[in-house]
C-alpha cells in the first residue's frame, strides 16, 4: 500500500515535470458568465463564440486541425471567474476568451498572467485591463473612446440642446466610469449638466429620479446603467412625460432592452463598438448565421466574443504555418501565441482591429445607432451616419 502510494506520488510529480504537448483538436478556453445575474451578457457571448467555432472549423480550423472551445462558467463573482480560469489553464487550453465583467478580469486575469496564458477580454472596457500583464489583451474598446460619439450625434440631430440630465448606476464600476466620460464630453460640447441623478442596478422604481429630471426641464437625458434598470428608467421617463432625446450607454447596447421599455425604447441613441451593418465580409457572414438561428440582429457582446475566438484562430494559423501546432510544447505555444496576437491585424465583425504592445485594442470603426421599434417587443439598432 505504502509502495503504491509512493509510486503514485512519484508519477504525479513526474507528470508535472514533463512538458505538456499541445492536444488536438486545439482547445481554446471561454470563461464567461453563464449563470447569475451577469448571464444576460454571458449567454450572448456563448452564442458568439459558438458561431465562431462553427465558422472557423468549417473553414478547416487551424490549417486542417479543428479547434474546440472549452466553456467554463464564471458565475457572477470574482471567485467564480478565478475558478474558471484555473480549470481552463489546468485543462491545457492555449488561450482564454473572457471574463464577462471588468471587475472579474481584475481578479482572474492575474492567474492567467502568472501561468503565462494569453487572455482576450471580450467585454472588459474599464481602464487598466491591458495593463494587468503582458498576456492580457482585449477586443472591447475602452469606454472613453466609444461614449463621446453619442453626444456628438445628439447635437447633430438637435443643435439646440443646452440643458442635460445625467443618470447613472452608482453601484456599477463600468457605469461610474462611463458617466464620467459622458459628463466631460457634455462640458466639452458647451452643454449645461443641470442635474446628476444616481441609482442602483437593482432598482426598478425610478419615480424620484424621473420627477427630478422633469423638474429640471432638460433637452437631453444621458443614462449609464444596464439593460434592466436602464430600460425601466427610459420607460418611466417616457410614461411620465419626457419627450426629449435620450442617450444610452454601453450597458443599454443590447436587444434585451427592447423587451424592457417596449415602444418607449424608440429613438434612444447608443454609441457602439459594433454594428450589424458593418460591411466587412466576415461580419455579414456572422450576421446572416446569427439571424438564421435567432431571428434578430446579433448584439455587440456576441460580436466581441466571436472576434475573440477569431483573433486566437488567425494567430494560431500563422504559428502553425511556421511550425505545426501539435509539435509544440504547450507553454512555448502559449508564449508564441501571445506574441502573434499582438503583432497581427484582423478583419473581424468589429472591422479591422489590431493591438498595441500592451494589448490595448486599436479599432477604427465606431458607430452611433438609434433604436427603432417595430412593435412592442421587436426593434433594431439603426446605424446613423
Amino acid at each position: 500500500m505504502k509502495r503504491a502510494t509512493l509510486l503514485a506520488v512519484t508519477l504525479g510529480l513526474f507528470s508535472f515535470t514533463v512538458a505538456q504537448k499541445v492536444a488536438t483538436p486545439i482547445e481554446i478556453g471561454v470563461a464567461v458568465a453563464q449563470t447569475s445575474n451577469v448571464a444576460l451578457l454571458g449567454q450572448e457571448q456563448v452564442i458568439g463564440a459558438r458561431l465562431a467555432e462553427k465558422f472557423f472549423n468549417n473553414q478547416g480550423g487551424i490549417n486542417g486541425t479543428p479547434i474546440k472551445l472549452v466553456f467554463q462558467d464564471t458565475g457572477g463573482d470574482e471567485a467564480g471567474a478565478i475558478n474558471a480560469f484555473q480549470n481552463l489553464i489546468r485543462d491545457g487550453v492555449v488561450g482564454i476568451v473572457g471574463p464577462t465583467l471588468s471587475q472579474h478580469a481584475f481578479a482572474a486575469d492575474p492567474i492567467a498572467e502568472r501561468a503565462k496564458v494569453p487572455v482576450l477580454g471580450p467585454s472588459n472596457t474599464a481602464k487598466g485591463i491591458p495593463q494587468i500583464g503582458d498576456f492580457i489583451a482585449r477586443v472591447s474598446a475602452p469606454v472613453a473612446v466609444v461614449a463621446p460619439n453619442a453626444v456628438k450625434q445628439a447635437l447633430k440631430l438637435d443643435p439646440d440642446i443646452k440643458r442635460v440630465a445625467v443618470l447613472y448606476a452608482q453601484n456599477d464600476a463600468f457605469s461610474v466610469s462611463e458617466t464620467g466620460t459622458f459628463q466631460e464630453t457634455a462640458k466639452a460640447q458647451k452643454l449645461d449638466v443641470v442635474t446628476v441623478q444616481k441609482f442602483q442596478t437593482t432598482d426598478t422604481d425610478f419615480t424620484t429620479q424621473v420627477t427630478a429630471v422633469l423638474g429640471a426641464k432638460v433637452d437631453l437625458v444621458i443614462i449609464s446603467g444596464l439593460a434592466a434598470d436602464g430600460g425601466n428608467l427610459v420607460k418611466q421617463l417616457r410614461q411620465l412625460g419626457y419627450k426629449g432625446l435620450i442617450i444610452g450607454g454601453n450597458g443599454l447596447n443590447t436587444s434585451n432592452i427592447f423587451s424592457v421599455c417596449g415602444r418607449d425604447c424608440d429613438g434612444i441613441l447608443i454609441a457602439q463598438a459594433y454594428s450589424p451593418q458593418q460591411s466587412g465580409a466576415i461580419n455579414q457572414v456572422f450576421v446572416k448565421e446569427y439571424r438564421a438561428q435567432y431571428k434578430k440582429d446579433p448584439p455587440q457582446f456576441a460580436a466581441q466574443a466571436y472576434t475573440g475566438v477569431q483573433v486566437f484562430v488567425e494567430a494560431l494559423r500563422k504559428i502553425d504555418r511556421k511550425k505545426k501546432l501539435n509539435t509544440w510544447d504547450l507553454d512555448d505555444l502559449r508564449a508564441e501565441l501571445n506574441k502573434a496576437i499582438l503583432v497581427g491585424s484582423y478583419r473581424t465583425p468589429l472591422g479591422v482591429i489590431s493591438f498595441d504592445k500592451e494589448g490595448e485594442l486599436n479599432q477604427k470603426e465606431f458607430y452611433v445607432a438609434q433604436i427603432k421599434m417595430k412593435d412592442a417587443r421587436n426593434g433594431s439598432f439603426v446605424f446613423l451616419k
Partner: protein
Amino acid sequence: MDFAQFLQNLLNGLSIGSVYAIFALGYTLIFSILGIINFAHGAIFALGAYLTFTLAVGEFGINGILKNVDLFPGVEGGSPIGFPLALLLGSLLAGLLGVLIERFAFRPLRARGADPLLALVSSLGVALVLVNLIQLLVGAEIYSFPSTIYGSLPPAVRFDVGDTPIVIRTVQVIIFVVSLVILLLLGYVIGRTKIGKALRAVAENPATASLLGISVDRYILITFFLSGFLGGLAGTLVSTSFGISGPYFGVTYGLKGLAVIVLGGLGSIPGAVVGGLVIGLAEAFVPAQFSAYKEAVAFAILFVILLVRPQGLLGRAVIQKV
C-alpha cells in the same frame, strides 16, 4: 417639500408599499404558523411572474430549454386567455408550488422534529434550485409584459394640484388597487371565516388545535398555498410595471420582505401590511439626490424602529417568567 411633491411621493410610496405588503404577508403567514422563515419566498415571487408570463404571453427568448418557443403562435398579443385570468392561474400555480415546497422541504424535517434552522437552510436550497431551474428553462433574458395587457389605458394619470401637475403611471394605480383588494379579501378570510379561525388556532397553539379536531397538517398546507399565491401575485404585479429582470429578480424583494415583517412585527398580519407601507413610503420620500440610497434609508429606519420597539411596530413583546 410643497404639497404637490408630498402627494406625488405619497402615491408612489403607497403603490410600491402595497406590493411589499402582500409579498411580506406570505412570509408572515408561514412564520405565524411554523415559526420559520421560508427563504424560497423570493423565488416563488419570481416564478409566479414567469408562470403568468407563460400563460399570458408564452413567447420565450433565445436561451434555455424553451428557447424560441412560442406557445400561442398566430395569436395577436399573446395568449387567448387574457391577462386577468393568466394572473389568477399563475398565482394559483405559485400557491401549488408553495404546497410542494411544504411537502418536500419542510414536512420531512418537521416530522423528525428537526431544528427550525434546518428548515431555513432547506428553504434556501429550494430557492437556489428554483432560480437555477428558471434559468435552465428560459435563460437569463429580461421578459416584459406587453403594454397592452391593461387594455388601452393611457400610460399615466395626470391631475393638477394648484398649478403643479401630478403624474402617476397607470400601472402603479392598478397595482395599488389590486393589492388593496387582495389585502381586504385576506383580512376577511382570516378574520371572518372558518378557515381563518382554524388558521389562527393553529398559529396560536398547534397541539391544542389538534385536540380540538383541527387537522394541523392540512392547515399548514393551506398556509403554504396562500403564501405562495400571495408571493406569485406580488411578483406578477411588480413585473407588469418593471418587467422580469431575470431569474434573480426575487432576491431583492425577498430581502425587503424580511425587513417588512421584522418592522411590522414577526408573525403579525396587520404588521406586515403596515411594515410594507412604511418601507414603501420611506423609499418614496427619500430626496432625489439621495435616491440611490433609498434602500439603505429604508433599512436604517428599520434599525432605528427596532432599537425603540424590538418587537416591531405591531408585534407582541415576549414576556418571560423568571
